[in-house]
Structure formats: C-alpha cells, structure tokens
C-alpha cells in the first residue's frame, strides 16, 4: 500500500493505492493520523480509485478516523463497486459520503 497526499483549501486529499486489509491497516492508520495531527483544522477526502480490495480490518481504519475527526468532515471518492458492497454492508455509506469511481478516472490513470 502507498499513499499520496495533497492539501487543497480546507481539506487533505489522500490517494490510497493497494489493498486495505490486516497487513496495511497499521501503516494506513499511522499515516492518516499523522496528517490529521499536522493539519488540525482540515477535513479528509480518501481517494480509493486505486483500491481494489477492502475487508473489515481496512474498514476499521476508516471508521476509526471518522470517530477521531468528530465534525471535521470525511468523505470517500473513487469507490469501486466491490469496495462499495463492503462499505454498504457495514453501514458506512449511511454516515460517510461516498462517491463512485468514474469510468473516466481509470482511463486517465493508465
């Protein structure tokens, strides 16, 4: 898993690349917490267009950041259909704004 972040206005945009599971949960959690501590007033947008897999260990990291951020604003973009299925089953789509992967996004990245 690798992450790339950009700060834009009042939000931190983090593009995640790789599978979100038990193996990548700790490094992702640490990287995100570091950013949230550094930019204390900003919201977080996680771009998941390069995430092909997520399970409950990966979800735990996202939900944990959501709780930690209180009202700072967290959203997920570039969510692929199979990742969305998992988010929905966990009820995350009801509390965190989630937008889909646009087909064009993929073309641009290749």
């Amino acid at each position, binding site marked *: 898993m690798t992450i790339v972040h950009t700060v834009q206005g009042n939000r931190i945009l983090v593009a995640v690349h790789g599978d979100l599971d038990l193996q990548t949960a700790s490094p992702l959690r640490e990287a995100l917490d570091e950013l949230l501590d550094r930019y204390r007033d900003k919201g977080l947008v996680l771009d998941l267009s390069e995430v092909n897999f997520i399970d*409950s260990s990966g979800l735990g990291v996202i939900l944990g950041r959501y709780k930690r951020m209180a009202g700072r604003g967290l959203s997920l973009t570039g969510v692929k*259909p199979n990742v969305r299925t998992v988010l929905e089953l966990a009820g995350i789509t009801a509390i965190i704004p989630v937008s889909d992967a646009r087909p064009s996004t993929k073309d641009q990245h290749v």
Partner: protein
Amino acid sequence: MKNTVKMEFLSVPDNVGLARVAIAAIAGQAPFSLSEIDEIKVAVSEAVSNAIIHGYHSRPDGWISMTAILDKQGLNVIIEDFGAGIADIEQARQPSYSSDPERMGLGFVFMESFMHELHVESTVGKGTRVEMQRFSRIQGELSRDVQ
C-alpha cells in the same frame, strides 16, 4: 472443474493477501463471476485475519491451514487455526461483537453475507475451524436442467 488445494502457512499478515490471491485463482477455475470472486476473497480474508489476530494473538509462528474444494456445486473453503479457540461461538457470531475494542465485529457478518453456508467449530485452547460454502449459480442452473 473438480479440484482440491490444501495450503498451510504461517500467521503473518502478509499471508492474508496470499490466501486471497490463491482463493481467487482457485475460484477462477469454476464458473464464478468476477464480483462473486471478490466476495469470496472478502470472506477468506476475514477468516484468515481472525486466525492471526484472535487465534494466535498476532504471533507470527502459528500455522493456518486453508483447504479449497471445487466441485460442480461450487467452492468449499475450510480455514483452520490451532490457537486460542472461541469460548462462546454464538456470541462471537453476533454482528458488532468483538473481543477486541479496536475491531468492529464484522468478520463473521461478512463471511455469512458473502458465502452461502458458514460452519464454525472451536475448542478453547485447541483452535478454530471455519467452513464456508459458495454455490456456483451457473452450475446450479445447469444441474437443474439436467435433472
């Protein structure tokens, strides 16, 4: 289409990804769609992660075995550890129940949702055996035609 694959690997987090890659390659030999294979991967990922975290308390030297059996019904996967075991299986399977405050208690929920059958057997101090079945829909339809 008939195949049996047995794997044994150590309880290191790296092997969660290995188990997923292997189960995807095995399921790919049956008439499962890509999104069905994605769901099977989640179920296997949860069971193997549980063996590592709960079965072996994240120690890297425990053995985990995964057996995958493909037949015309579909895919049967058995994931077994020889670690801590579960005292109360019914409680463990409740949505949101987790013995670890940092975790969400969704592992068994995902296994149940993404597979058609789930059986859990466990003995405290001996280990845990999770057996999951995913039926292949296309084959189901074919065998109905045959009968």
